């Protein structure tokens, strides 16, 4: 038996694990689990940030992305935007401190939601290459450009500034990030190339210039000058919060009484409702929120869940909108037919959301095999975990045969088509922190099915018409082929010249083209009395 109690021995090894350390050991949770995905995640976080930054400034995004291959396994990602830039003091925190950001505390439709994104890429870079991440940023032509080389102190989750300079930069405002990392460049459905292309489809207001590792320049030019509808931050809806969030809100609030806290910090709670909730939870209206956080939060939580309140406002959402979505699709996918539909906003569990879908059909799309499904959440392409996603479930659950596509069992339909589904929400329910698949909420699946069916009906009309057109063309073609045969038979039969007969027959065909096209199906020998 050792002299020291076991608990004390154990205590020597027990210490706080910083979030950075946690990430180091669990990087798969954030999507950095293999070199190919790490490259994609880095590009994804950087592009998302760039698009959000330009949206904040209400400018049309001009984004340059370059991926250079430095050695077999080492890559450098450079991304440059024309956003508002970042004030000097904030640069180290934003890029080299995990869970730092403004997005986490508000309910607003944003690309990122946790603020873990870009700093995770910085950390991954540091872990795999030991190199600092380089940032250049400028907020105004009147102010200088700042250049930083940053590392993360993984124990304390604090930025370490390796270098800090004022530099010359040709941009008036914007941010440039250079990250080196161990990675692997792949092609295909889950590649960076695909991510950039799909981003261009969902963000037709952006121009994306992309230099791939093969040093090819791919330009995705802007398809519309219309800025997306601005999304607004909303307060939480009483039905849409969790106990932990409620406790945090009670702590952080500036309201001094419970009733005013309910009225001020939630949407859809007026004086009467606030009173009712307090009574239901058996709490004083004038109680201090911070005090309740410690003792009676659970009772309050139950009362909030049970309260009869109208659904949250839905004007906070920013759908791509059907016209713009169709433009995005048209400029990147060569097809014969396009349809895009945006559903009216609705609510799941107290969170407003809105679903859009688009279908491209025919043209150069592959006729063999299943359709291509492109999933988007708040304009961000979702490339991984298709099978686990509610969007996939809604697509495969739908019966596509009546809409003119092949389908065997509950699989994705087959045919020359691309199906796009976009879900916009202040809080997209992902199945994991890697944000790759949407959780299976009945309300969401139902909305997706409805929008797909609406698109499907338009598609079915087109296919019916289109197939008919093709048949008609074939008919005319057949007559063209028959004519020389008939002419030569007639020439033999009548001892007249073949060429003359053939020419005359061709003239008749030309003349009667329209009436031939109108004929439907098989007409039997006409009977005359």
């Amino acid at each position, binding site marked *: 038996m050792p002299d020291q109690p076991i608990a004390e021995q154990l205590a020597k090894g027990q210490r706080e694990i910083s979030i950075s350390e946690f990430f180091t050991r669990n990087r798969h949770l954030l999507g950095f689990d293999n070199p190919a995905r790490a490259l994609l995640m880095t590009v994804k976080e950087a592009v998302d940030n760039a698009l959000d930054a330009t949206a904040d400034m209400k400018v049309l995004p001009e984004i340059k992305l370059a991926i250079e291959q430095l050695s077999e396994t080492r890559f450098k990602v450079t991304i440059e935007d024309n956003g508002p830039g970042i004030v000097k003091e904030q640069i180290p925190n934003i890029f080299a401190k995990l869970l730092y950001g403004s997005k986490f505390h508000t309910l607003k439709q944003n690309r990122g939601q946790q603020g873990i994104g870009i700093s995770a890429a910085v950390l991954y870079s540091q872990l795999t290459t030991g190199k600092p991440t380089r940032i250049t940023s400028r907020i105004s032509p009147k102010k200088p450009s700042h250049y930083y080389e940053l590392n993360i102190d993984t124990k304390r989750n604090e930025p370490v500034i390796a270098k800090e300079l004022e530099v010359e930069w040709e941009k008036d405002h914007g941010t440039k990030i250079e990250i080196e990392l161990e990675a692997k460049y792949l092609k295909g459905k889950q590649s960076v190339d695909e991510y950039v292309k799909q981003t261009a489809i969902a963000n037709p207001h952006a121009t994306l210039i992309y230099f791939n590792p093969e040093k090819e320049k791919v330009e995705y030019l802007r398809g519309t000058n219309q800025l997306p509808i601005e999304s607004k931050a909303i307060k939480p809806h009483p039905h849409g919060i969790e106990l932990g969030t409620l406790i945090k809100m009670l702590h952080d609030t500036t309201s001094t009484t419970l009733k005013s806290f309910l009225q001020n910090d939630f949407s859809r709670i007026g004086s009467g409702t606030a009173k009712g909730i307090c009574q239901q939870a058996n709490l004083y209206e004038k109680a201090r929120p911070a005090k309740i956080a410690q003792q009676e939060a659970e009772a309050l939580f139950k009362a909030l869940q049970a309260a009869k309140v109208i659904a949250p406002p839905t004007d906070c959402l920013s759908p791509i909108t059907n016209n713009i979505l169709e433009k995005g699709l048209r400029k990147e996918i060569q097809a014969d037919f396009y349809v895009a539909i945006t559903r009216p906003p609705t609510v799941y569990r107290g969170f407003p959301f809105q679903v859009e879908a688009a279908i491209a059909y025919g043209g150069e799309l592959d006729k063999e095999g299943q359709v291509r499904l492109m999933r988007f959440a708040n304009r961000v392409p979702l490339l991984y975990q298709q099978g686990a996603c509610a969007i996939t479930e809604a697509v495969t659950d739908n019966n596509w045969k009546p809409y003119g596509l092949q389908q065997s069992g509950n699989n994705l339909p087959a045919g020359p088509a691309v199906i796009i589904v976009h879900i916009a929400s202040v809080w997209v329910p992902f199945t994991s922190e890697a944000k790759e698949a949407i959780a299976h909420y009945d309300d969401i699946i139902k909305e997706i099915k409805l929008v797909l069916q609406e698109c499907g009906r338009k598609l079915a009309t087109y296919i019916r018409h289109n197939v008919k057109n093709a048949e008609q063309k074939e008919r005319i073609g057949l007559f063209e082929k028959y004519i020389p045969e008939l002419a030569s038979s*007639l020439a033999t*039969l*009548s001892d*007249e010249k073949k060429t003359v007969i053939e020419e*005359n027959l061709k003239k*008749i065909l030309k003349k009667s083209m329209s009436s031939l096209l109108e*004929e439907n199906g098989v007409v039997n*020998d*006409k009977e005359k009395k």
Partner: protein
Amino acid sequence: MTKKKSEEELKLLGKKIVSQVEKGKNPEINFTLRNLSNIVYDKKSRTLKLGDKQATRSFFNVAHAKKFLQTVEVASIIKKELLESGKHEHLRGVFYMAKRTIPGTNVNIVDDQVESDKAIEDLEVISGLSREELHVSANKMGSMVGSIILEDSGDVINCAKLGRGGYSVPSIVDEIKFNKVDAEYVLYMEKAAIFERLNEDKFWQKNKAILVTSQGQTTRGIRRLLQRLSEEAKLPIYVLCDYDIYGAYIYSVIRYGSIALAHTSDRLTIPNVKYVGITGDDVIKYDLKRHLIKLTDQDMARIKQVSEYDWFKDNKDWLRQFKMMKEFNGKVEIQALSARGISFISEKYLPEKIKNKEFLE
């Protein structure tokens, strides 16, 4: 002479179509409709004929185009390859002459002999020329034996001296000449086996008969031959068939004509032909009941169908035969008579029935 006439007739058809084309009209061919809806039983002549319904087949019509092409193609083949050279060809040969793929498509002008056969039948209706006049022949499937001397393509044939096989009747019999006929009637039978029996027994010598057979349904050539023997040699024609609905229908076709060849009934039907057997009465008289073969559902359905044909529905004698058939729930083959002795048919059955004029009409 006929050959020249046929050639001119087809050329005229070609010229008519070409002149429509010259005028910028959708070329069309008019002809009497040949499907069942236009088959009528003409009570006066007691034959099946085509009605008055006319069909128009035009080229620039999705449903007609191919048939139109087939008809014209077959007509041109017949004119150029057969009539101009004076040669004859079988239906099968015409099919192969017409069969080819239209360049740039996967469409054949004809895919199946049924199509070219139909085109030829259509052409008969359109041009008013018979298949024989178009120099198209069918497989020969018939034999003849008896005291008749005929001339075919310059050869003189004595049908009394052709051994067990007899004269093999060609598909086209129009040019055969009857040089000398020394017979009192013609006996046509559906079974070649019976023909051989009667020939071996020298039935035709003893009874001054001409024997004719074609296996199963009577071919067009045999029907034409029987009609000529009836009309030109003025011989009565007797038909010997199984006692079943199909035997009855074989008689019916010889007498009234068939649906498929209603357009050329005049050249094929024999209004005074008589049915000699087998009958339901024979079954009782000659004790053939134990040789009855049970009727199938198909037989029953066909009996009902035939009983309702215009040319049967008022014929009490035949309806009685059908009724007996149903009462027996059975049918009997001619060969069943062999149970009474191998030459019972030639020595007793036929001579007695013909002598006693036990015929059905």
